[in-house]
């Protein structure tokens, strides 16, 4: 199964990645698996100015975008839609994402509303740790992105595939813990080395599976990438 071409990213995950200076992790994903990390413009706005961190992440954000590590998906412009879509299909897709995003934004916040909307219509995965938003959407019968990944899914994959050292992973864990940032339960009271043993990872290299990867149907299903 080919890797998804795009990985949409939510503000909460990118804030963690900027906070621990791990933009190279996104670059590694792009180089290794040809998966382009991408954000909707609402996420760009939330990262440029955040109620808690103000403009702390504006500079790394712009740097990541200008370097092409992060792309911006202007979903409202049909010409930005996947190339295999015809012009009328692209226009329909753009409208569908806009309408779904508007509908979702009544119940979840702006960035995640449009991120989930884009993922739902494009069949793309989403990097987000906002499980409350996912539960709220699902409880109201709204489909969410499938699958949903966390920063530690990315970190664990990179670690297992030799893209990042164990020491660097543990530094990330410590920094996030010190900043009272979200950590998956397995890493809350354990070092990276110990935590990864019980971590329910959702992101794998296809070579890590002996069987054909199952299709992703639920938000917490694992995703297998091909290099």
């Amino acid at each position: 199964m080919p890797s998804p071409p795009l990985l949409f990213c939510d503000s909460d995950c990118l804030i963690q990645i900027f906070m621990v200076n791990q933009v190279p992790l996104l670059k590694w994903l792009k180089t290794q698996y040809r998966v382009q990390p991408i954000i909707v413009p609402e996420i760009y706005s939330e990262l440029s100015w955040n109620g808690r961190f103000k403009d702390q992440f504006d500079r790394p954000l712009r740097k990541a975008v200008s370097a092409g590590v992060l792309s911006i998906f202007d979903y409202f412009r049909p010409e930005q839609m996947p190339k295999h879509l015809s012009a009328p299909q692209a226009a329909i897709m753009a409208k569908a994402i806009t309408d779904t995003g508007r509908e979702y934004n009544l119940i979840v916040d702006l960035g995640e509303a449009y991120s989930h909307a884009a993922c739902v219509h494009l069949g793309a995965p989403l990097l987000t740790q906002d499980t409350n938003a996912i539960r709220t959407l699902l409880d109201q019968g709204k489909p969410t992105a499938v699958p949903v990944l966390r920063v530690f899914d990315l970190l664990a994959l990179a670690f297992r595939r030799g893209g990042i050292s164990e020491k660097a992973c543990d530094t990330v864990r410590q920094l996030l813990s010190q900043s009272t940032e979200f950590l998956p339960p397995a890493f809350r009271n354990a070092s990276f080395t110990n935590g990864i043993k019980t971590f329910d990872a959702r992101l794998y290299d296809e070579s890590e599976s002996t069987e054909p990867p199952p299709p992703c149907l639920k938000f917490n299903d694992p995703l297998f990438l091909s290099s």
Partner: protein
Amino acid sequence: MNPYLNVSGLDAATCAGLLGYSPRLFQEWAAGQQLIPPSIASHIASVLGVDANDLMAPPKQPVSVDEIEPAIWFKLRSENLGPADKELVFLVRQLGTFYEELERVRSQGGASGWQLAFLQVRQQINTQAPPREQGREAAQVLRSRMGWNTGRTGIGEIIRGSLRNLGILIVESPIRASKIEGCAFHVGDSQRPCIFVNNHGTTWFRRNAVILHELAHLIFDLPSEGASLDVYNHSPENEISELRAEAFAQEAAAPKEVLAHVAQKHGISWTAPFKVDDLATLVADTHVEPRLIVRAAIESGLLASTQKDVLLGLQIWDRLKQLSEHALSTKEYLEFVGQEESEPWNLRRNTTIPSRTLRLPVTYVKNVLEACEEGIISISRAARLLMIDEHVFLERFKMDHLLGAE
């Protein structure tokens, strides 16, 4: 500068600060260097009162402000109001928009009975009559339609609820630096009517009249003028709309039958010399301030006009506090109900994201929290609606349990 962003008279940095956007990005949107996403254009447009499409694709040619300036900003400009008032209106319109969005998810679309009610009131009055007569007639029609005339007593405790049931948004919030006492405008896609009352340094009794005054503007003036603004201690006597609204508020709150009934119930004679206790009782039971009672009583022939100064000179406040909890200050009220019960609501209603702090109405905060607890909206959405950061939300309202298992 995008002319549609400029209509408020506030610069890009101020707008960005009030709405919680990046000043850099907002400047780029305003200068046309970046496309404004439709969702954000829609948010800014609803606050400004312009069309989102115009924000996203402003005209290449220069546009005259007169051609595009929404009514609310025109009124602010023509009343010579300052930056604080403009910022207040900006924030209040944002609050109104959020309020409307919350109501849509909570009540599956929100009530729209106001349209029919307003139409019925307008149809049943004689538009050729003098303005004050129009106001009185309209108040009588509305009192009857809303059931406010049953019991022949004050309506202060029921007007907010019954107007909300009609789908009208009512926002009461203290804005210290503003000269605006009340305003009315439409918000959201459904053009829902919204009444704002500045409750800084004013009483609940006064605010009841202000709500009714703004309601009159909503019924009569908003269809043609788009917005209304009322400034403290400034009521133009030569404007039809103001005379009508004033008479409407007076007749809706204190018609002759209510004044007569309340006085009779407490054994108060309109012709005998008034005592402090008499006036305090009238205020407590009619739910409006002494000035309005005196004016209404004189106009309805219950009170001799020579009594006006005597009544208005009575110091009723201490006695009124014994008769009505509505007369208590916030501090006194907290002591009255018990600090433990009310403390969270007193201290946790301030916004933190906008550059100017707004104290949100208790009902609104409660509705947001309820919607979040019930899983109707997410934590991040609830924080956005309260104009605070998500971390502040979790800490302030002890909502960590909603984060649940991973």
